[in-house]
């Protein structure tokens, strides 16, 4: 009777570890500054002109107070000369790229320094 809950706890912990951190994968202070917080996995750095673009795979929506529904794959801008979305999985804090196109988003502050946390 005591053994079964323990096994379940171990199994649950293992499962959580495989999926990556959840609640712990967000910086609440940064999250309060933006409408969108996502867990993403980098597919490719594309480059760009004034801004550089990173193509990412959407892993999980942590917070989305925008009207935009993020597809499985989309692009995130950052200022050129700044670090963008890192390799692997990370949490991104997004601000609108401009005032009209709801499909275009940019890292908070234009940089991974402010717009990315919890790389994994």
């Amino acid at each position, binding site marked *: 009777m005591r053994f079964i809950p323990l096994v379940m706890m171990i199994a649950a912990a293992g499962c959580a570890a495989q999926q990556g951190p959840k609640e712990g994968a967000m910086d609440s202070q940064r999250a309060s500054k933006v409408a969108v917080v996502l867990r993403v996995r980098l597919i490719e750095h594309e480059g760009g*002109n004034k801004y550089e673009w990173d193509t990412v795979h959407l892993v999980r929506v942590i917070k989305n107070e925008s009207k935009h529904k993020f597809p499985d794959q989309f692009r995130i801008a950052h200022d050129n000369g700044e670090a963008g979305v890192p390799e692997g999985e990370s949490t991104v804090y997004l601000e609108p790229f401009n005032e009209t*196109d709801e499909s*275009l988003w940019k890292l908070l502050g234009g940089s991974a320094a402010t717009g990315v946390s919890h790389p994994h």
Partner: protein
Amino acid sequence: MFYEDVKLKRGDTVYGLGKEYGYKGTEWHKIWDDPKNAPLVKKRGQPEHLQVADIVFFPIPWKTVTRNLCAETRGAAFLVQRDGEPGKRMSWVQTVYQDNQPVKGTTKFCVDGCPADDNLPFYWTDGEVASPPKWIQDFSGDKKVKLSKTFGDKPSRNPPKAGQDTTKWRAIVSIAVVTDKRVTVYDSWVWGFDLTVAGKSTKVGPRAADPSEVAGHLHLLSIGLGTSADNFGKQGWTFRKPPA
């Protein structure tokens, strides 16, 4: 040097406008005493007596003094600075040819930033001018960088895929003098980079744009898109070379 002709509106002063066109406040007399303004000076006597709809000619002597272009791993980095003081009516415009690697959602030719980050034809957004991003502070080596005096860009691409030609990314950047929706464009520089399939980047330029390139640059600015459906020309913006 050329003259920017400005029809005065209520509240305009030679002192205030001079600061917006890149002069120090103490230099208002350089404008007032310019021979081009002699008929107006004779008519009004004192700057305080100017009236709405008077036309003042502002000498624009500013020129680029720094043009540093470096090849980067996947592109190039270009820093341009002009002399003179900062000024709200002094800006930069850049048109870009993206060759075989246009940013998704944009065309080969575009007005930077492309895709558009605002609905103005200028390189820097108003927000960036008010608070320069860290990257341009770092790039210029000046924490107090003034973007009306400084242009910087670091375009990059992935190497073209096998079977594609070398990516030949090119841009023309110019100083822009802004009076209402009229933009006078001058001191234009062609720059860019070639990026081979093997990933080798070579800088191209900078060199002064020739007259045909400037004409193309002006045309692109006019047909360029901001964040609205209408191009800049349809929005009422005009782009010109300095008047003779």
